[in-house]
Every structure is written in C-alpha cells, then in structure tokens.
C-alpha cells in the first residue's frame, strides 16, 4: 500500500522554504560569529598569558618524563625500577605522612564545624523571613559575601602572618571561607521554610530563641547537614594545599618535595592525597544518601 501525501502548492512552499533558509542562515551566522569571538579571545588570551605551544611541543616530552621520573625509584637497591616493585622504599615515610594527612583531615573537620556554626548564626541574621531590620540583614549578607568570595588560601596567607605558622591559621581560613559558603546556602534554605511552625511558636508565646529551636531548626537541619558534608569534602581538598603558605597539614611536605625534586616522595604524597580524598568522597556521599532517605521516610 502506498500513501502519497499531497504537497503544498508551489507558491506557498517557496515562501516557507525561503523562511526556513533564512532562519537557518541566521542561526549559522550567529554560530560563526560566536566561533570567531571565542577564537579571537583565545588568541588574545594566549598572547596575554605567554602561551608558547612551541615550548610545550619541545618540552612536552619533559612533561611525560617528569611523570616517568615520579614513578621510578631513585635510590635503594632497586634504583631505576618502577616504584610499586618496592613499596617499602617508596613509602618510606608512611607513618609521618599518615600523621600529617590525619592532621589535614582534622583541620578540615574543625574548620567546617566552626564555619558551619558561624555561617548559621550569620544566616539567621540575614534571612528575610526572620529578621525585620533591613540594615542588620544588609550587614550580615555583605559579611557572608566577603567571606565567600575571598579564597581560603588568601585568608591563610594573612593569618599566617597574624597568628604564626602552623595549622591554626589554616583552620581559621577554612572556617571563615566555609562560614561564607555555608551561610549563603543556609539563608536560601531558611528563606524557603514553611511559615506555619514559626507562627505556631510565636502564637504560643515563644521568644526568639525557642522559635528558632522548635520552629526553624527542625526544618532546616537536614539540608544544612547535607551541605555541611559537601563542604567538608571540599575543605579536605583545600586543607591539603594550605601547607603551601605555611598553614599546616600535608601541603608543607608536598611543596618541599616538589621544590627539592624528591620525585618518589611527590608521587607517594599525591597517591596518599588522592586516596584520602576519594575515601572522604565515598563516605560523605554515603552519609548524604542516608540523610536523604531518612528525610523521605
């Protein structure tokens, strides 16, 4: 069985075809324009950032060579062999490194906790549905913004000078940056709560603190916990590099190994950091899924 669809009369078809071609041309035009713009920006940026593809080409081998050297034993009886053939030689400083990694995770933990508390307090002052005073809200919001936009390592640089070397400035830097990031998310959660429990508390004659405790906290806690866990994971990553500026943790050891070209140590430290971060990643995402399940039930 064949079925022929009747075609439109040629005059109307031509008009439609022309309109279609016009639309296609316009979209192609836009695409070409965007491509030219991106390409031009890339060229300008390349000039600005001293990109030297020739050098990458000539030294590209060196890059892979670098990774090759990372993975070849430099000393010991098996010098020149792959590192994994002699793990005891490769991870010679394991005990010391694990302590440093533990400190790094601890820094992230303390920093996240303090930051979450401070961020929540600021969020309570910045939420439009809890605070009537405009200036107070404006102030709290600006404070959160500054804490959030200045990167934690910049805080760490300043704090190292004020508080001295060690994990303390690192913890404070993480705490302040986390307060900004978590505070903003907390404001969003708080501004979206159900008003009825709050009204119930107020109607029963509760003052500010009990209203927050029984009307707001039960609603926002699951969301805050989930964001807090995510932030903890991010903070573990950041804590690993805060040592670059002298703010404690494993970063100090890593930057020394890289600067002094202790290739095997660099490889070992990178592997340890990767494992730790992945482990934390897995644990926190498990916890977050549990939290979600508990909330749905």
């Amino acid at each position, binding site marked *: 069985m064949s079925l022929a669809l009747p075609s439109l009369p040629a005059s109307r078809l031509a008009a439609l075809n022309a309109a279609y071609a016009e639309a296609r041309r316009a979209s192609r035009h836009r695409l070409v324009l965007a491509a030219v713009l*991106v390409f031009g*920006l*890339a060229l*300008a*940026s*390349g000039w*600005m*950032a*001293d*990109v*030297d593809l020739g*050098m*990458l080409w000539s*030294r590209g081998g*060196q*890059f892979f060579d*670098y990774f090759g050297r990372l993975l070849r034993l430099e000393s010991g009886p098996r010098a020149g062999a792959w590192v994994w053939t002699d793990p005891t030689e490769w991870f010679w400083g394991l005990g010391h490194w694990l302590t440093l990694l533990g*400190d790094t995770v*601890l*820094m992230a*933990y*303390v920093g996240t*906790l303090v930051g979450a508390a401070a961020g929540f307090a600021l969020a309570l002052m910045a939420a439009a549905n809890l605070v009537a005073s405009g200036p107070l809200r404006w102030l709290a919001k600006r404070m959160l913004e*500054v804490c959030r*936009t*200045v*990167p934690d*390592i*910049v805080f760490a*640089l*300043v*704090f190292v*000078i*004020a*508080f*001295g070397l*060690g*994990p*303390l*400035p690192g*913890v404070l830097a993480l705490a302040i940056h986390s307060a900004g990031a978590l505070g903003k998310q907390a404001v969003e959660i708080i501004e979206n709560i159900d008003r009825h429990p709050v009204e119930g508390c107020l109607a029963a004659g509760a003052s500010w603190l009990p209203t927050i405790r029984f009307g707001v906290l039960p609603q926002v806690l699951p969301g805050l916990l989930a964001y807090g866990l995510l932030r903890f994971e991010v903070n573990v*990553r*950041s804590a*690993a*590099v805060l040592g*670059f*500026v002298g703010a*404690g943790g494993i970063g100090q050891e*890593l*930057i020394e190994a*890289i600067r002094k*070209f202790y290739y095997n140590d*660099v490889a070992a430290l*990178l592997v340890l*950091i*990767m494992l730790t*971060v*992945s482990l934390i*990643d897995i644990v926190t995402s498990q916890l977050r899924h549990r939290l979600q399940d508990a909330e749905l039930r």
Partner: protein
Amino acid sequence: MRLPAHEISGLRASSITRLPAIRQAYPDAFRRLNAGRLAMGALCLCGLALFLFGIARLEIAPRRLLTGSGQLLHFLTLMWPPLPPSGAQAIGILKALGETLAIAFLGTLGAAVIAFPLGLLAARNTTMNQALRFLTRRGLDGIRAIDALIWALIWVSVVGLGPFAGVLAILTSDIGTFGKLFSEAIEAADRKAQEGIIAAGGDDISRVGFGVLPQVLPVLAGQVLYLFESNVRSSSIIGIVGAGGIGLHLAEMIRTLEWPSVAFIVVLMLLVVTAIDALSTRLRAAIADNATA
C-alpha cells in the same frame, strides 16, 4: 479561625482524660530517652570529642587566638583606605589581572575541548566499551582529587614560572571536573530522540550525533560558563606558587606587609569576580532560553 473558649477548654479536658491511654499505647514516644535520641546523643558526643581532640592536636590555644586577633585588627586598620601601589607596580597589577582572566579563559576552553570526548567515553549511553568507561571514570576521579594549586606547582617545574604554567594547571584540573559533569549531563539525555533515530534505521554514531548531542550541548555550554566563573577565582590564586596572574602580586604584597595595596588587590579581585559572575549568569540565561525556544 478561632474556637470559642468553652470549646477549647472542652478539647483540653478531653485530651487530658485520654492521656493515660495514649501514654500506654505509645510508650516509646513518651520516654525521655528513646533509642533514636540516645543514638543521636552518642553521635553528637563523638563529634564533640573529635572536635576537642582537634583543638588540642592542632594547638588552637585561646592565648594565641587572642594575640593573633589583635594583630589582625591592627592589619585591618592599616588596610584602610585601599590604595594602589605607585606607578609601575600599579600597571603590573593591571597586567596581572588581564593575565588572570586569560589563564581562566584558555584553561577552561582547552579543558572543555579535551574533556568532551572523555565525557562521551565516560557516559553509560555513549561509551564504546564498559572497561574503557571504567578506566576513564577512575582517571577523571584521580585528576579531580588533586587541587589546581598542586597541578600549578607540577607544571611550574615542567615549563617554568609564568602564566603558561597557570593555563596548563587550570586545564589539567578542569579536565577531571568537566569529564564528570559532561558524562552526567550526557547520561541524563532523554531516550526518546535516540529511540526515534534507531527506529528510523540510524546507527550508533547518528544516534549520538543527532539524538544526544543536540540535547546536551546547551547544558554543556552552561557548565563551561559556570566553571569559567569558578576558574577566575582559582586563577587569581595560583600565582601564589608562581604560575602567573594576580596571586603573585597579592602574595608579595602580603609578605611585605603593604596592607593598603593588599586591600586594593582584594577589592579589585572581588569586583572582577562579581562582574564575571554577572556576565556569565546572563549568558547562561540566554543559552537556556535559546535551548528551550
């Protein structure tokens, strides 16, 4: 709606008379310490113990906090008003700001180009081979676990100090992020268009080319813009390890205690980040509109 007073007291009286029965029916809810509360309390105690251990282990002493805060306050008073350093250094800072933007732009662009095929490989519905998919995913995870600052240090020891190392650092660390984001977006693509192409006799390549890509490209473009925003932040700090950009000047000014200049650079960074955020938010909204229209 408000109940009349006698009805409220009636309600109250009736519920009070029923209280013993309710208490008997749900003893667990009336106990001060039920299993759930005990577990929660134990968890909180463990968390608190770890926190206190951390305070002791990381040498967070109140005395140090106090003297340090005093110092910090002193620095803050010195920071006002934010002033650019004189002459040649000010021009250097502006140039470094341009460098920062250039690093972020090139790094994001390069990473997006390299990560696109990797994202296809790592997505369940477009990959060629399950083993390859697993390897790609683990590789991307490994890249992502290493911070951009560490990559910057590594690249500095390969290509030397300067913004080029910064471009390569942002590029490398973003390949991991993009690969993951892209593969997730591709896996979330609607199956109907793909089924239509298979039903019309298309092979796998046309299924991906006509059924998947047109759906996901706008999403990917949005993600690229979003990461560009975050990269402007990252590229403003990688200068701390010598990989170009404004971070180098910032670290230098902090170490030489030139507080007005520090404040100036931080304010400049905040302004640029805010401007880029606003621009990219508008572009992303435009892309989303275009995709739905």
